[in-house]
């Protein structure tokens, strides 16, 4: 399908993601923060769709927005929000944060301003991504070339699950 109003959707989704991100860190009510995070995640899923990566978009929705955020909310709802709002926020490292954020920003601007690097990046022919068999390509990649990495990652997750069980259970 031919894309429609690509520029508009790109800026719209980006703005949504940015606004969501800002709200996540500025809201004092943790539930509001979590909801803002959901907006960010959904906007990112939209951007993935624009990048002809529907599989990643789908996984983003089903795992992050539908799964992990539900668990986040689950935990947050059990916490006394009134107390949490009065709690001291975790922003004691704001100096370091500002320095690193500025550094990253400067780097981005530099790269963008440097016409040589940009030209090199832009002139590369974009690989044609077929939307119609994206899932199949991802599947072949994961279970073909990157089999080992995939299995290592799943092992890591298994370890994490066992660790969580051990930590949650007082006696086994």
């Amino acid at each position: 399908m031919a894309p429609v109003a690509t520029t508009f959707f790109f800026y719209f989704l980006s703005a949504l993601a940015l606004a969501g991100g800002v709200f996540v860190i500025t809201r004092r009510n943790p539930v509001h923060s979590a909801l803002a995070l959901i907006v960010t995640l959904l906007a990112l899923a939209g951007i993935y769709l624009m990048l002809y990566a529907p599989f990643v978009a789908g996984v983003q929705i089903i795992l992050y927005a539908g799964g992990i955020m539900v668990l986040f909310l689950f935990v947050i709802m059990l916490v006394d929000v009134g107390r949490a709002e009065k709690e001291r926020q975790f922003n004691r490292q704001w100096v370091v944060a500002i320095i690193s954020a500025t550094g990253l920003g400067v780097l981005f601007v530099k790269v963008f301003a440097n016409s040589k690097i940009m030209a090199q990046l832009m002139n590369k022919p974009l690989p044609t991504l077929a939307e119609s068999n994206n899932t199949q390509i991802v599947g072949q990649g994961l279970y073909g070339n990157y089999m080992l990495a995939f299995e290592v990652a799943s092992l890591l997750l298994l370890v994490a699950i066992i660790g969580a069980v051990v930590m949650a259970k007082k006696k086994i």
Partner: protein
Amino acid sequence: MSDATKYISHLELGERDETFLDSNELIINMGPQHPATHGVLRVILKLDGEKVLGTECVIGYLHRGVEKIAENRTYAMFNPYVDRMDYVAAVSNGLGYCEAVEKLLNVEAPPRAKYIRVILAELNRIASHQLWLGTHALDIGAMTPLFYTFRDREEILKIFEKYCGARLTTHAFRIGGCQYETYEGFERDVIKFVDFVTPKIDEYEELLTTNRIWVERTKDVGLISGKDCIALGVTGPVLRASGVKWDIRKAQPYAVYSEMDFEIPVGQNGDTYDRYLVRMAEMRQSLRIIRQAVGKIPEGPIMAKVPKVLKPPVGEIYHSIEAPKGELGYFIVSDGSTQPYRVRVRPPSFVNLQALDLMVRGALVADVIAVIGTLDIVLGEVDR
């Protein structure tokens, strides 16, 4: 008793543990307006997640001072008031009160009246159990049995209506016998009802007894041992489901139960499922009693010779009967005047409700509903 604290339901509603992440202890107020508390029962639940740590019942929302009213009415005038206590088993209430006053007066109702009393009381027991079954199943989430039981209960209420003009608060009996002779075709109607309802009880059982979810929801829920039942004074089907074979109809027969041939169904485990089975079996036994009573009903007067103005001699009497919910007792003190000096009602629901805390401690919220249902309380009787 050393382990007396086991039976005491007293919530420590003190300060909550105020740590940041560990504050999932929840105090929930269930009722007095709640779909599953069968009226205006209020239960304060202390929860850890969904687990019940303790309960406390707050009752009295329907308190009408029945006992105080009795002291200001004559014996005959108080008779209709007792119907308003356990309003789903009004006949049993009336039966207990009339027999107690008769005892105090030293008169005895004629046999025909006694047979009519037994028939109506057993019909009422079936009606009460049907109402219990419907609402209990509805609490657990099965809607359909409610409509089945209400359809069949209607037939009983029709018989009541034909007999005495009222469906619910019947005021069917008078001190000394019955006021009304049976209407034309009463026996036929009752037998027709017995034939009609016998297969219907199988139908209820078909819906529930082997239903896996029903069994899972009720088996091992609200366990109470026979010993605990006796300690807490729990009577009726709850006691029998815990394996204690005790029924006042057999132990200390009143009316004409001594002439009836029936069995006392007992359970073994004392869980909600057993209580369900016991009540189902009790309905069948009641049908058996009704069939016998209709067959044996003698001719004769329906009213004993009682004076126009009732003046029982000075004295006190305790008389109890097996109401659908358990032991319903009347303790009446007479000072020789036309009005009772003191009437104490020993309500089965009130005493049985005490067992709630023991039965639900450590269970889940959903079990509280099931246990309130299985105790078969009527708030009109709890609060009086």
